């Protein structure tokens, strides 16, 4: 196990190196004066300008500059937004909880319903249930998030009036951002609103998390189905059946547990899909998360925020994948014991 953890850490470090190299190269390739990009309109040659050049280490060799860049990142210094003049890292973390909350709920939905649908389809292979799952997952997988979100708003919010249109919570509730997670913060305001604010926050999560979950849900359902079919045809299932193990136990314990192994990797890969989806979903539902922040930063030509934000998202995806690989080792006995 230690060996595996060590291997994961090495991969993590190498990926970090690779990403920083790519990003460093990109910052070199961006047209325009990096001083002006980062500090705004300074007159070249002025005292302020030269101070900025020195502060950014632009008067040193490329290799030195790269070292400074990596050093800054390791110290959590990703520069300052040239619109708000606040550190990019702290900006990122003010928006991140909203994205995290949304993605977490979406992942849960995708996981629960994706696995359920996949198992159902596998068990009832080649029946109408199977066909329904396959075809609807294909539709779900290829659904443009934008259109799908609008459709749901139109139906559930405007025509039926069941769900809110946008935002994280009704503005009637004055919720102080403590953790940034609305579900938690609304509970912290229990003394003021009891559970009303919490339920309202949940209602605001329904549509966006459903929209965000759609693509991963479809992917997970398809993967579960094929993996489950493979497992259910394996010899040990046959053995279990002949020993008289209950069908319930065969499907959910012997079948699903083994089918889950390749699935874990798929779920890890879906994390990047989830983050791209989050950008669109947050834009549709005016959800103030990292995705919306990045889109606004692009429109504002806020280069430090764009660079820092993309870098952090890249780290995040790598981190998730590394964790998933670890998890893979935990649930897959074959990975643990070297031959």
């Amino acid at each position, binding site marked *: 196990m230690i060996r595996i953890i060590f291997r994961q850490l090495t991969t993590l470090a190498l990926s970090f190196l690779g990403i920083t190299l790519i990003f460093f190269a990109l910052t070199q390739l961006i047209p325009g004066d990096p001083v002006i990009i980062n500090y*705004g*309109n300074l007159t070249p040659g002025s005292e302020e300008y030269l101070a900025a050049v020195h502060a950014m280490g632009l008067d040193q060799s490329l290799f030195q500059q790269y070292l400074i860049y990596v050093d800054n990142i390791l110290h959590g210094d990703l520069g300052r937004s040239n*619109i*708000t*003049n606040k550190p990019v890292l702290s900006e990122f973390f*003010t928006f991140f909880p909203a994205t995290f909350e949304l993605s977490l709920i979406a992942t849960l939905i995708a996981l629960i319903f994706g696995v*359920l649908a996949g198992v*159902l389809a596998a*068990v*009832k*292979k080649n029946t109408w249930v199977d066909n329904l799952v396959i075809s609807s997952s294909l539709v779900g997988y290829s659904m443009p998030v934008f259109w799908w979100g609008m459709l749901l*708003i139109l139906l559930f*919010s*405007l025509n039926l*009036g*069941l*769900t*809110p*249109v*946008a*935002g*994280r919570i*009704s*503005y*009637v*509730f*004055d919720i*102080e*951002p403590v953790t940034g997670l609305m579900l938690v913060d609304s509970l912290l305001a229990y003394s003021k*609103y*009891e*559970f*009303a604010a919490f*339920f*309202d926050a*949940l*209602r605001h999560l*329904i549509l966006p998390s459903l929209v965000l979950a759609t693509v991963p849900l479809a992917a997970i359902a398809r993967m579960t189905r094929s993996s489950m079919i493979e497992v259910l045809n394996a010899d040990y299932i*046959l053995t279990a*059946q002949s020993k008289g193990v*209950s*069908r*319930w136990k*065969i*499907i959910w314990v012997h079948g699903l547990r083994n089918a889950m192994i390749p699935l874990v990797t798929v779920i890890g890969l879906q994390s990047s899909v989830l983050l791209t989806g989050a950008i669109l979903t947050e*834009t*549709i539902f*005016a959800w*103030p998360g990292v995705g*919306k*922040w990045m889109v*606004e930063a692009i*429109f*504002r*030509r806020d280069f430090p925020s764009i660079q820092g934000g993309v870098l952090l998202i890249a780290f995040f995806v790598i981190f998730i994948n590394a964790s998933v690989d670890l998890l893979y080792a935990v649930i897959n006995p074959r990975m643990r014991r070297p031959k």
Partner: protein
Amino acid sequence: MQKNFTLFALLNLRDSCQTLFGLTLSIALLLLTGCEKAAIDLDAYNSTLVYCSEGSPDSFDPHTVTIGTAFDASARQIYNRLVAFKPGTVEITPSLAKRWKVNADSTVYTFYLRKNVSFHSNEFFTPTRSFNADDVLFSFNRQKNTSHPYHRVGNRDFAYFNFQSLNTLIKDIRKVDDHTIQFVLTRPYSPFLSVLAMEFTSIMSAEYAKALTDLDQKNNIIHHPIGTGPFQFVRYQADAYIRYRAHPDYWRGKETIEHLVFAITPDPSLRFARVTAEECDVMSNPLPIHLKALEQTQATDVISQRGLNIAYWSFNTRKPPLDNKLVRQALNYAVNRKAILEAVYYGSAEIAKNPIPPDMWSYNDNIQGYDYNPQLARNLLYKAGLPDGFSIDIYTFPEQRAYNPNTIKTAELIQQDLKDIGVTAQIVTYEVGTFLQRVKSGEHDTSLQGWIADNGDPDNFFGSLLSCEATIPGQNSAFWCHEEFDAIIQDAKTISKKSQRAKLYKRAQEIFKEEAPWLTIAHTRQNLIVNQRVKNLEMSLSGGIFFSGVSLEPQVADDKPL
């Protein structure tokens, strides 16, 4: 075997599915209906007004911002000025100044300040004194003196202060006593009172500034604004919302709306969806199609008013070939404005021929505007020595404004029309803050612009947008500095007789037409969509929104939306 297995599994699955479905259903039901029973505090609903605004303010500093969105978020709710416009008019009424006196040649203005006006308080600051002459001094000196400790805070231009040339106009500001202040001007200036009613003269607290200096947190004067206005700032979450509370000691009396929230919703369709679902009480800048869609419903009202505004396409006259009058005239003839009005404004605007709107006094109705005539445009280009056309860029931004519901579509229509006369146009889009910055630096060939009047004086258009002075901060985006024109509008500023001034402005419009530094596109009607529970909301002539004095009709438990 396989078949058997499936059949068997089905039986088990059916049971488990039922349980699962049951569980899911009950959770869903709880979510959808449960909260209806868990009553949201009705009082909170009845005292909270939600305004769906069109964007994030670039700052809360009323002295430096220039766009309406930012004035709506700061000056119009948080701050007061010495004088104010009577709602819906351009008439000057007292505000922080109870009364005033002007000397015979209108160079000395004396203001007698209201007593017992209290400032807001927040986590950094609790005021120990009421508003007095020091606060007026601070608010003007901060903008006037480059060496003032708060001049560099925010590191921005005091754009309005300079456009209105107050930096050269004000010779001295004298504190006569704690509640009397005197402005001494370098020359007679008739629009001065109108200028003092504008948002950029908002009064900040000198005491707060001092407290922040001691804490070494000067920037908080912008991030945590303190004013004397009807609402005090509570919290701003970028791209999400701004929250205000009624100022308990407001000098006009506490507002009936306890909580005011700006729900920042840049997408107009989403904004419309939110107001129809009653998530918002007021929606800014509805699109013409929204107004059409509302004709059948009862739940909402539309507040509509002919606005003091103009949308225009300005030509950077410093860049050839746009420095040539003939070329600019050719571009004026080349564009089919009727098509723009139909496709972009859906008819809720009228074609503009002058740089000022028809409701502004001194509007010259005798001027014959440019009509759509591509043949004439081609002839003019030929005469200018450009028979093969040329290429230019059109700078624009992807946001909707009161004066233009869709600038990008406008740019595309112009691009099409220009193709007909052999001019290739490239559309360049930036977010509005960046757009303004770049246009001010003069890097554009042409840009799509607009202006909403800040006060009822024609000088607010001519002086701010077309004077030689305004080329320096770049607000004159045509960088057009015409000697005769400039002399006329400068003259008109010093004369106090309105009829004489009107005569001068009428002449200025003739020169403008001939020189064509802009293509004047349209004057729009300004609209708000408002839920019926909102009472007494009026639009200011400048299109700004003031929530002071607005009230909400209390709702009973049953008809309250969630």
